[in-house]
């Protein structure tokens, strides 16, 4: 029973990291209707910036997180402006391939700057751990803060898209780009803003990911990125609560699958679940069913 709880908490912790990453995927998809495969690598850049700020410049953890957010926000806007904006009218396949190109570009630039040797990311949180059941169950501060950060981010995002002017503009662009433009919404600026928010989230996700799983190397973002993308599709891509629920479920399934079925099949189970969900609910758990226009 205690070990089940332990697995569940680990699963929620891993799932929270996936959820924060998935929020970035889902926002960009919901508004710009494109899959930003470079998202996972923005996470990696965020983690490196935070690492460098702490390790080489001796800045306090909070400042390093802010620095990572600023750099990633700028990076996100630049990527969008240079790589994706010129392709706004192009076929979605071209945009997809460009995104994969950006992903490789970021990985290789990181390889040039930081080298291939892994670095060990020291956790930015140093609060104590909670011990339950006489020390049998230890919940680390990383786990608690990851879960808390996840909840805060989701609430903030929901309020932002629901209540603010920019948020409403985002929803309008997401509904119908052309009509939004006719209503006087600056579509390009709205999409830039989406990338800015998505990338700032990526920076936070990078710090959370590496605090819980401390090895940092240029490919650190790619596998969690793919898993989070799976989570976003699982929950219904484009839906903010969907990304959250998809991420959490995926993390829990992965950990419980490894614990009770087989460590060798953990990842296979995750992707098998995706296939099953898509077979029965093609729009994902919380996605809106879409009708093809004829």
């Amino acid at each position, binding site marked *: 029973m205690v*070990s089940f709880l*332990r*697995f569940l908490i*680990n699963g929620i912790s*891993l799932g929270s990291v996936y959820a924060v990453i998935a929020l970035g995927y889902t926002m960009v998809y919901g508004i710009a209707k494109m899959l930003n495969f470079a998202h996972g690598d923005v996470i990696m850049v965020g983690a490196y910036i935070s*690492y460098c700020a702490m*390790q080489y410049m001796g800045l306090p953890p909070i400042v390093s997180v802010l620095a990572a957010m600023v750099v990633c926000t700028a990076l996100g806007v630049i990527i969008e402006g240079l790589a994706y904006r010129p392709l706004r009218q192009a076929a979605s396949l071209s945009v997809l391939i460009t995104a994969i190109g950006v992903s490789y570009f970021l990985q290789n630039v990181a390889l040039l700057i930081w080298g*291939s*040797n*892994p*670095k*060990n*990311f*020291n956790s930015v949180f140093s609060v104590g*751990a909670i011990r339950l059941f006489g*020390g049998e169950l*230890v919940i*680390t501060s*990383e786990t608690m803060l990851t879960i808390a950060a996840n909840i805060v981010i989701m609430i903030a995002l929901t309020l932002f898209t629901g209540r603010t002017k920019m948020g409403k503009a985002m929803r309008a662009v997401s509904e119908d780009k052309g009509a939004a433009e006719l209503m006087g919404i600056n579509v390009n600026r709205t999409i830039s803003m989406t990338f800015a928010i998505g990338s700032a989230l990526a920076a936070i996700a990078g710090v959370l*990911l590496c605090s*819980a*799983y*401390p*090895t940092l*190397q240029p490919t650190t973002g790619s*596998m*969690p990125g793919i898993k989070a993308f799976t989570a976003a599709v699982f929950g219904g891509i484009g839906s903010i609560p969907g990304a959250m629920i998809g991420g959490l479920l995926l993390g829990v399934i*992965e*950990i419980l699958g*490894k*614990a009770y079925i087989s*460590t*060798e099949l*953990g*990842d296979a189970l995750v992707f098998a679940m995706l296939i099953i969900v898509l077979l029965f609910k093609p729009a994902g758990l919380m996605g809106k069913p879409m009708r093809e226009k004829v």
Partner: protein
Amino acid sequence: MKNTKKILAVILVMAMAMAMSSFALAEDAITIAVIGPFTGAAAIYGNSCRYGAQIAAEEINAQGGLQVKLIEGDDVHDPEKSINAYNNALDNGAQMVDGCTTTTPCIAVGAQANEDRVFMLTPSASSEDVVNGKDNVFQVCFTDPAQGAASAEYISGHGLPTKVAIIYNNADAYSTGIYQTFKEKAGEVGIEVVSETTFTDETTDFSVQVTAAKDAGAELVFLPIYYTPASMILQTAKGMEYAPVWFGVDGMDGILTIEGFDTSLAEGVMLLTPFSADAQDEQTVNFVTKYKELTGEIPNQFAADSYDAIYALYTASVNAGIDGSTSPEDACELLIGQFTSPDFKIEGVTGTMTWDASGMVTKTPTAVVIENGVYVGFNG
């Protein structure tokens, strides 16, 4: 224009003649090719081997008598480039090879050298495929599977806990190879394996594997894996307040060099390695001092293996009467004779080594344990 070319040609010929005559005047020397990755992602291993070989050659040459000349070839950890480096070295007069550093290039060059009849002694390519079916290729390092059996014997023979969990990478031939031989040996020597879990190169979360070991009550966790995942496992275990004895293999060598790694996590980690840089015997102290002078760093196992490889090649050459005029083909047969002879024994910094016709080495590994962030010898 034509005249300038002629004059140039004459000058070149004269320069070559002078160079050759100066060789003839020098003492007789055998020529050894040192092949490994000196650039690229695996450069750390190749350069260690190169510097280890340089130190050995310098020491030998300072003694007088038969000299050693090294020809270094960079293979960038690529089989094709390795063959090029090998051919290039032979064209320049190499008679035998200290190499290759890494397994994949070594298999490629080994096949070529087997055809050409050139003797190869690899310091560090540890796969069995390197030596299998090639009578002219020998190893200084343990083969991967041998490490598993040696680890099991060491654990049971030195009073370490015998309730053991294993966490290994099932996507990696090195890791699974060691795991299998460890498992086979464990039954024979009374080790009880209570938990076996796996991961792959993409795994980021190790909580399940560590929990399984903890719940099974393992007192020792055997990690036949590289140091990067090992560092994550140590971190995870710390979060769970689980502190068994950690026992690694040579892939664990390097854990203290991860940038930003909290070395207190690795406190008490044991690893089986034939070389420990803080051993106090005269030979090791001498080697470590010279290596530090040359590179500013503490030598790792690769450097030590390559250092021993040059001594092994040199000693065998002296015994067999090989000199600068022996052809690579003749040298190959003579060296095979030496290495497979029961009297041939090398006492190097990585232990006392003997070989048999399989090309695999026999030597006794020692365990080191990490204390206060450095390796110290383990006396169990």
